[in-house]
């Protein structure tokens, strides 16, 4: 069980986070909802984390999704 680097997408509100999760599932992105890491100043209490290596699929998704910001260098189990 090792920690790995993730990319995190943040949102203004929980509804946007859930809408993003639906789109991500449709795109078969490997990721999940997690609590907002404290290093990120802006966003609602949850965000979407995906493992690095899915950047191109994420880029497509971000064109239609409503989100606040994208961050890397977030380490999770």
């Amino acid at each position, binding site marked *: *069980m090792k920690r790995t680097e993730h990319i995190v997408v943040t949102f203004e509100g929980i509804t946007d986070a859930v809408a993003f999760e639906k789109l991500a599932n449709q795109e078969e992105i490997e990721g999940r909802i*997690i*609590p907002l*890491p*404290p*290093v990120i100043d802006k966003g609602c209490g949850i965000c979407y984390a995906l493992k690095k290596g899915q950047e191109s699929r994420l880029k497509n998704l971000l064109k239609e999704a409503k989100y606040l910001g994208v961050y890397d260098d977030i380490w*999770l*189990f």
Partner: protein
Amino acid sequence: MIYLDSAATSYYRPIEVADAVHEAIMKLGNPGRGSYNCSMSAVRMLYDTRVMLSDLFGAGNPNSVAFTYNVTHSLNIAIAGLCKEGTRALTTAMEHNSVLRPLYKAQKQGTNLSILPLDEQGRIDYDMLDSRLEQGVDIFVCTHASNVTGNVNDIYKIGEICRKYGTIFVLDAAQTAGLIEINMEMANIAVLCFTGHKSLLGPQGTGGICVSDQIFMPPYMCGGSGIRSFDREQPLSMPESIEAGTTNAHGVAGLKAGLQYITHKGISTIHDREVALARRFIERIEHLKNIKIYGDWSSDENRVGIVALNIGDYPSFEIADALSYKYDIMVRAGVHCAPLLHKSMGTERQGMLRFSFSHFLSDEEVDQAADALCEIYEELYTG
């Protein structure tokens, strides 16, 4: 799955609660809108529940009990009703935002607000409270137990101090209603706010406010009351003054079933079991060198079954996520809507991991949660 977030909402409930809600949805009419059977069934059910709550809290009168949607709703009613321009209000740094935000709103409207600080274990100082009230405080609003540390305030001591100086005592019983004995009369509590979906084991969307006969609580919302329909204003007598519109009778039916369960089981039995589970959890993890456990653990009477902790400087969210994702164990991380407590403890960025135990859990489930935390700890420090 192991659910350890009972401080947020109960997950484990007796099946009777769900059955009661189902039956209510199938059989009850709108309470107080007719004298026909299904409307009166709803009224009678509400009344029986008011009696149970009045007995539980020593309110003295079932009409003192009004149903609300949750404790936040109740606290908004109380604070908006009692805090006006020039009111001197005092609260503590251990409060939830359901107390703080309505007070901040009142402050913007001219209430003078001050905040009692906490010591390093998250406790208030009763001597300090006494000298503050002596200087002149109209209303003191505080929680019975911290939703973060699980520390319990001595409401009888607080009530005595409030009585000495003529301060109105408003209690947030979100974490203790159904878990610790509360007698409004003996503790000099003028207004008690409670939620239905935590230790009372009722559904979400239920709660209430108990208002002493000595206090006038003005209406917060106006609308249909089922009585005095030609009056342009909301009736001023409890409970109709607070219960504008259709009461959530379906939810209160579930709340009633929860009350019946806890009355039968015994609230001190439930409290003792939850604190025992919390202590069992601590015993299994306290050997870990970089674990910090917050709160006052000097006695079981002074606390509820909540353990707040951190592992070194690791962000609490990361551990909570690992527990959920890898072990299917549910805990809460972050600041728990209690910003001043975290400022007081220096954990604004890190937050805390909060494990809150239901009496429905088995010893084995608690051991499993502790062992999972130990595995994560191992990974962080040796992996």
